[in-house]
């Protein structure tokens, strides 16, 4: 059976700043938590055949994240891009992605990272799955294909859970489950010369403007301010053994090691 796998990607801001940031390849990168999802999709394609589509919502200059995905082996990229999408919270983002995914049907799997490096809610995967009425497993470590069902494994609090789910389904992929491949130079050339990114706007998705972007968001950010953590440096004294003992005791006391 050949798969059509859709991977949802975000380009995230590299470092927060007090000034508004223009999302561009200089200020952004492909969300590191999406890389394992991408790698999972590419391995499945290599093993079982099929195609992989990368889908991203963001401004035009986030296109590079899709090109990077295509350089890794993704077959096509879709950027949903419209000024109406600006200021979206996770619900409005999921609404937009769900509409794009429907337009990409038929598909077998929709993969997400577990969260993003710049907002860290972990909501977009699950919300999109609910909107599409898809079965969902989060934090997936491995996938086995058995025809119309797949068996997936996730681990939670030192328990391993196994699920068998029907396709189509949605999964969020655990960040430590797999190491993403390096981007090779041939891949980059092929991505830019032979592949293309489709651009869809509000009209293409058939959504009304009050369901997307800031208007379609159910949450509002009141304010964002920088928290500067006070760092302090302490120097332990005594023999090496004493210092090691003391360090271990302190780490254990503060709950950092168990």
């Amino acid at each position, binding site marked *: 059976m050949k798969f059509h796998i859709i991977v949802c990607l975000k380009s995230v801001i590299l470092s927060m700043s007090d000034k508004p940031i223009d999302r*561009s*390849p*200089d200020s952004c*990168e492909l969300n590191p938590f999406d890389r394992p999802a991408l790698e999972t999709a590419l391995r499945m394609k290599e093993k079982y055949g099929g195609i992989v589509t990368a889908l991203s919502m963001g401004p035009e200059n986030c*296109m*590079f994240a899709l*090109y*990077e995905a295509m*350089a890794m082996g993704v077959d096509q990229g879709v950027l949903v891009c419209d000024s109406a999408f600006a200021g979206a919270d996770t619900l409005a983002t999921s609404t937009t992605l769900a509409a794009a995914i429907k337009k990409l049907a038929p598909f077998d799997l929709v993969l997400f990272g577990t969260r993003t490096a710049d907002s860290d809610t972990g909501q977009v995967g699950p919300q999109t799955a609910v909107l599409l009425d898809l079965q969902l497993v989060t934090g997936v470590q491995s996938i086995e294909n058995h025809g119309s069902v797949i068996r997936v494994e996730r681990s939670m609090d030192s328990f391993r859970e196994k699920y068998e789910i029907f396709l189509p389904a949605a999964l969020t992929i655990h960040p430590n489950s797999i190491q993403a491949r*390096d*981007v*090779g*130079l*041939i891949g*980059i*050339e*092929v*991505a*830019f*010369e032979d592949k293309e990114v489709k651009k869809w706007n509000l009209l293409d998705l058939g959504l009304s403007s009050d369901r997307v972007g800031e208007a379609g968001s159910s949450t509002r950010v009141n304010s964002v301010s920088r928290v500067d953590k006070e760092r302090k440096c302490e120097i332990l004294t005594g023999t090496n053994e004493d210092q090691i003992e003391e360090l271990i005791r302190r780490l254990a006391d503060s709950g950092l090691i168990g």
Partner: protein
Amino acid sequence: MDSFLSEKNRIVRQSVRAFCERELMPIAGEIDNEARFPWEVVEKMGKLCYFGIQVPRTLGGAGLDSVNYIILIEEISRACASIGLCVTVHNSVAVYPILAFGSEEQKRKWVPALAAGEKIGAFCLTEPNAGSDAAGIEATAIRDDGNHYVVNANKVFVTNGGIADICLFFVRTDPRAGRRGISVIVVERGTPGFVVGDLEDLCGMRANPVSSIRLYDCRVPKENLLGAEGAGLNIGLAALDTGRMGIAAQAVGIAQAALEEAVRYAKQRRQFGVAIAKHQAVQMMIADMATQLDAARLLVYRAAVLRDKGKPFSQASAMAKNYASETASKVTDMAVQIHGGYGYSKSYPVERYYRDARVTRIYEGTAEIHRMVIARNTLGI
């Protein structure tokens, strides 16, 4: 820094940088110290097509342009200049001349393995008695039975010499024809009579196996002649125009690494109650380093853009190489200065940058020869 470049350029930079920061940067000090060539990393670079960046896709390369090529060399050299040297020499003065001057058969025979990094290329011009004066080489290739050349050569300072499989030898096919008697013959490692000398114990670029290679009555098929007999100097000059751009990019990469280290150190080191970055004398150095580095980088990009547009780029390439190599020397010197005594110690990488930068003013044409060429072009004499 790259906002004026294309998305493709930026993805090339980001991916090469990510790879080199993970695989090369952490071992750069160690392999310099041990003078060890890191095959384990180079093999991975081969799979990512770093050894075939400008080779057409039909021959197994990536088919990228010169701007991407200099970004590649800059980024590798920022992590490890010795490997930057390996990749630039391979691409620009070994693979490129085969692509530009080789027959279809020669390209099909050698290029795919070179592009995949399965075979490494070398450029063998310099001899004990012929350095700057390339036309003074003494190596000879004499046709014997009509199907072979018998080649005798003593080539020194061959970058990649200890590991190279496919070597471009500059030889005299006609001893009486002077400059017009020089030809390029491709000699494969393993040909009887092909002897690799000891590795040079170098001041910098220590992870590159630079060595001498001697050919003793090596019988080489006549099909290995690149271009026509007597075309050697032209091939060499064309290769060096491209090669110099690569060396310039290498110098920029080294200087970039030195600037980053200097900035990091200046913010962290405290003297007289403040970070030394607050002292104006240190700030002046940082300002000069940043400005000269950018100027050098822009000269290199200009040369690459001209080459991609099919415009003459020889002068641009010579200026870029000359200025970038001088800049790398100055910037790494200032980085050592900002580190004080620690800069002179192997505990920090700047002393390596300082050593590595030095040779960029010597190889692929010394600073003096470059100025001579630039002056001649400028004066029109």
